[in-house]
């Protein structure tokens, strides 16, 4: 098998332990993001997701300063921000963008200061790049336990609230009449989104994390109308993009000029874009056949 794949997979890929950690953590995070991502897109909270990701920069850069894993900082600030955004009206469409924008601006301003201190006051070189753009091959294996816990929490929330969240996305009045509390469900969903963005901030970087959250879900929504299948496709697209991205980044070390690997995040985000464009093209083709949607079944 290695013989056949030799031109595709460069030597040492399967025996490198940073690669193992990257495949494991990156894979788990991609699946979590794909699943939580569907609810982010369906509930129209992509912008809130972006803001949470930006705010996780603040926590991540703070973590480096005090010497703990950035994952704690990412999750700490984005969950706190989710709470603040919920309190100041993220549930109302008009209040939402304003509230989100204000909190986001303040958080990024603080991040600018913290990142400056990171580079001037600590010995951590490249902290800025790691936090903003991720560093899949330098993930400390000791965070695997936290990654697992956050993943279970995020997926647990949206799996438990699967039906209430879908119903609230149709109409909050319909949901209330059915006995759902849309406000509570929405707040919990925002926490799941915050956890998912902090996880992907760890792998592909805080700035890029919403690409993994929103991209695979948006592509999957074009493939099927069945909510369960959307979750499966979304997780699969995220997983394939991440694993293929890791492979290409590993291989790129051997590309000319030799010895300078390209960042994993670049490949992951680019692959997600390609998947999205492919599904977009497919949807365009279906739209020209009007009977296709009604016949699905």
């Amino acid at each position, binding site marked *: 098998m290695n013989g056949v794949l030799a031109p595709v997979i460069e030597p040492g890929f399967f025996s490198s332990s940073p690669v193992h950690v990257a495949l494991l953590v990156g894979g788990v995070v991609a699946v979590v993001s794909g699943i939580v991502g569907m609810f982010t897109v369906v509930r129209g909270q992509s912008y809130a997701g972006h803001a949470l990701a930006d705010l996780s920069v603040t926590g991540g850069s703070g973590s480096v300063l005090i010497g703990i894993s950035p994952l704690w900082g990412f999750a700490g600030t984005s969950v706190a921000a989710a709470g603040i955004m919920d309190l100041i009206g993220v549930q109302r469409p008009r209040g939402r963008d304003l509230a989100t924008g204000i909190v986001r601006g303040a958080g990024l301003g603080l991040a600018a200061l913290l990142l400056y201190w990171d580079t001037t006051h600590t010995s951590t070189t490249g902290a800025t790049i790691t936090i903003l753009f991720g560093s899949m091959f330098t993930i400390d294996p000791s965070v695997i336990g936290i990654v697992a816990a956050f993943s279970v929490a995020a997926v647990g929330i949206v799996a438990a609230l699967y*039906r209430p969240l*879908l119903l609230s996305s149709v109409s909050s009045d319909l949901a209330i009449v*059915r006995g759902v509390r849309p406000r509570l469900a929405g707040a919990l969903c925002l926490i799941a989104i915050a956890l998912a963005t902090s996880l992907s901030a760890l792998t592909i970087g805080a700035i890029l994390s919403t690409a993994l959250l929103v991209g695979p879900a948006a592509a999957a929504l074009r493939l099927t109308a069945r909510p369960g299948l959307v979750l499966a496709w979304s997780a699969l697209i995220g997983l394939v993009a991440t694993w293929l991205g890791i492979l290409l980044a590993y291989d790129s070390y051997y590309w000319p000029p030799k010895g300078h690997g390209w960042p994993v995040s670049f490949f992951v985000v680019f692959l997600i874009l390609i998947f999205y464009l492919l599904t977009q093209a497919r949807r365009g083709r279906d739209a020209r056949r009007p009977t296709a949607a009604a016949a699905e079944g």
Partner: protein
Amino acid sequence: MMTDHRAQALSPDEMLVVDGVTVRLGGREVLHDVRFSIRPGEFVGLIGSNGAGKTTLLRVILGLLPTAAGQVRVAAAGIGYVPQKIQLDPDVPLRARDLVGLGLDGNRLGIPLPSRSRRKRVDEMLAAVDAAHLAGARVGELSGGEQQRILIAHALISRPGLLLLDEPLANLDIASEQEVVALLARIAREQNISVLISAHDMNPLLPVMDRIVYLAKGRAASGPTEDVVRTEVLSKLYGQHVDVIHVHGRVLVVAGRDDGLNLPEEPAIPAAR
């Protein structure tokens, strides 16, 4: 007046009792001492112009808004609700059958496992609203009339005793309008469900309506249609002279000149309809 907020048992021939309900929103009295009741299987039209308080009244009955005075009593069989036009993004991953299924268990936690009996019940409900062929279509891609039927199925699948519909005929073409009215009348009759349907135009409902609740300026008059839709009753309700005019089996309520001649100022017959 004194208000009794204790829930009282309804007699078996009452599905809904609205008892002296007054509602204030933002300091303004939107509904004043509204009272009427609905019997099982009755088809009742809630008629009034835009801003008369129809949606407010429906939201009070649903428990979505508090009353300032009076109370609402609903039979134990519960309420099904079809809200005013829902804007559904075509991307929302819900097929017609998924939305109908959420009417059954949308409040439950966890991901539903495939269940033959649940599927069968959804199929039956879709068939009952003549939408079996739409089962696999995305809800966001359906026409207004088709979405209306799916929402009716969503509201009915939990077998409520009372179905509330907020302006279900708005934005429908005449053919879909007649279809939806005929469908609702058939369901009310076959399943002995009471229907309370709001509309700004009573005419599409005249053939099927058992009784009318007419709202104007936050006040209501209710009873058999021919008792309520009369010049004297509605003029009193509006607090100004209005004319009730019958033209080719249709009823028009127009503000008249208060000079004893009762002539409408504008041509009373709208073009085309």
